[in-house]
């Protein structure tokens, strides 16, 4: 960076920008760099136009006018988070929106419980989804194998029935035309396989949404934990009276 600020001022600016960047975790790296560069440019312009006081007083006045890093990003953050998962069609992003809204209020025990429940529910949904996809593919595969046998060598199926002694393989209305049953079965099973594969493929959106929510929750929990541990280190200034009045 070609800014020719005094070293002590540069240090203060870098500290400020570092705090800003830390608040922008979760924003795409390119956007983050651009915003930090823009704020650096602002600070520089503002600094060289500030005349009153020594170096330190000038830079402090500049940063005071600029405001807290939180002001610079206030309404940017939800957008940044929303941009994490690129596609916006999946209904999971609506759920993510609800979760964001929920995190907007202080997270109490109740909300935490709801959150855990939701996450577990989502996980269950995902497992069920993939399970259904896999079983469609597997069922489709076996049906297609049986159909191919029915087309090429229906005798094998009849002999299976004879061997077991009951109608394991049934042709229903196609009793006398196993080839026809085979063709219909093959088409149906290919459709079923296709559906299963489609489910597995579209599962990546589900997975992406789920990962996104996990990241979101992780961030929020960490920030709450940070906040909490900071409070513990510097207890808030309101003294609790031992009795009613002193």
């Amino acid at each position, binding site marked *: *960076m070609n800014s020719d600020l005094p070293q002590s001022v540069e240090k203060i600016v870098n500290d400020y920008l570092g705090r800003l960047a830390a608040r922008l975790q979760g924003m795409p790296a390119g956007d983050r760099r651009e915003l930090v560069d823009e704020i650096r440019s602002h600070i520089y312009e503002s600094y060289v136009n500030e005349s009153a006081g020594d170096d330190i007083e000038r830079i402090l006045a500049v940063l005071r006018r600029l405001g807290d890093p939180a*002001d*610079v990003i206030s309404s940017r953050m939800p957008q940044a988070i929303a941009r994490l998962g690129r596609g916006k069609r999946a209904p999971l992003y609506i759920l993510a929106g609800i979760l964001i809204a929920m995190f907007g209020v202080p997270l109490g025990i109740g909300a935490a419980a709801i959150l855990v429940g939701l996450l577990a529910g989502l996980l269950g949904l995902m497992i069920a989804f993939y399970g259904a996809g896999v079983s469609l593919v597997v069922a489709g595969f076996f049906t297609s194998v049986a159909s191919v046998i029915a087309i090429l060598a229906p005798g094998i199926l009849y002999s299976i029935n004879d061997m077991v002694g009951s109608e394991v393989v049934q042709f229903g209305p196609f009793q006398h035309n196993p080839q026809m049953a085979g063709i219909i079965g093959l088409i149906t099973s290919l459709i079923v396989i296709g559906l299963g594969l489609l489910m597995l493929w579209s599962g990546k959106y589900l997975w992406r949404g789920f990962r996104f929510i996990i990241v979101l929750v992780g961030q929020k929990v960490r920030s709450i934990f940070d906040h909490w541990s900071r409070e513990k280190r510097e207890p808030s200034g309101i003294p609790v009276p031992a009795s009613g009045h002193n």
Partner: protein
Amino acid sequence: MTMYQSDEIDNKITQLRKGILELAILSALYRKVHYGYSLVRDMAAAGVPDLKEGTIYPILSRLAKEKLVQTEWVESSQGPPRKYYSLTPSGRAMCEALQDEFRHLIRLVDDAAKASVPAPQSPPGKRIIIGRQDDE
């Protein structure tokens, strides 16, 4: 009759200003291309009081996302490059529409102020008192 606390008034004023800030930024860009700092200076010169300068950036970013402004990085003769903002055609149209609406609202407020009657001594209906319970 209870008087409103002065910080309550401040709060309302802050909200009002926040709502108008976006239009103020659009209007400044309507007249001239700006980079962040020059925009802030322009608005301060126009009389926008105690503006936290950082607050314009989220708004600018939103306007860019809505394709109302376009941006361009330009090298500066001294110091880091500057990010310039200018209104797109739809930004200009939006600015004009909002300005019209704003003038209409000003007339509305003016007329209401002229035709105002003295306020009743106390507001009708129930009053809800929210207080903190002290420890015993």
